[in-house]
């Protein structure tokens, strides 16, 4: 019975690995898009101020 636990732990490990991967990827993409749009806004304001 002890031997079978490796299957249980493998299944849980894989599940949370995939969920973690999806979560981290989404969060990094969000950060990147947010940073890009913020820097774009700052650039636009600077250009407008120079004008």
């Amino acid at each position, binding site marked *: 019975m002890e031997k079978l636990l490796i299957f249980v732990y493998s299944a849980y490990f894989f*599940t949370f690995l995939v969920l973690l991967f999806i979560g981290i990827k989404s969060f990094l993409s969000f950060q990147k*898009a947010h940073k890009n*749009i913020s820097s774009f806004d700052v650039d636009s304001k600077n250009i407008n101020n120079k004008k």
Partner: protein
Amino acid sequence: MINIFNFLANPSRFRLFSQKAYPYTLFIMSIFMSTGLWFSLFNSPPDYQQGETVRIMYVHVPAAWMSMMIYFSMTIMSIFALVWRHPLADILSKCSAPIGAGFTLVALVTGSIWGKPTWGTWWVWDARLTSVFILFLIYMGHITLVRAFEDEYKGARAGAILTLIGAFNLPIIKFSVDWWNTLHQPASVLKLGGPSIHIEMMVPLILMALGFLFFYFSILLINVQTELNIRKLKKLFIKKFSEKN
């Protein structure tokens, strides 16, 4: 209900809504996921035949439910996108596909891991396993197709058509275990006549399913914000470029 839907149809309003909502969905997810994990690993009985391996069910079954539920919601969104040209429907569908693909992969791999000790094999090409594998391929096809077009509208339209064609696979997945003789067991929770599973096993199953559902909501809200920001950035670039010229 229709009023709420119309209210959220505006991308700016939806961005504000998702900014406010996603910390709550993440919090609810962590509650369900942690209690679900505790119940499924430490506070549920082993099966009289399968022993401890039955615990794989608490991640495999909710992942399989989610893979189908997300695809079903994508089908509804595709109808909205194609028929009513709903501004958010194609974004929601595009952002749902990678999460659905992830859950389908989890269902396939954990099912395979569960199959080895119970069936004696990692994989068989029976109706249920094959139809879920096809679902995974459709998800991957959708992800690739939507991003293959330079014009977002054309990509979304192609993705919506593919989703509608692929929706025929959903009843095949659901009823494959009834229509054909398969190695996979028939439904024991979502079936006519009520569930035939013991309450002690039902509790962790439902908790994990709710945890996965709120994981989907949280990631979807984050992905939608990302997509809206990318589209806004593109528009700003075009505006800036046209102003210069």
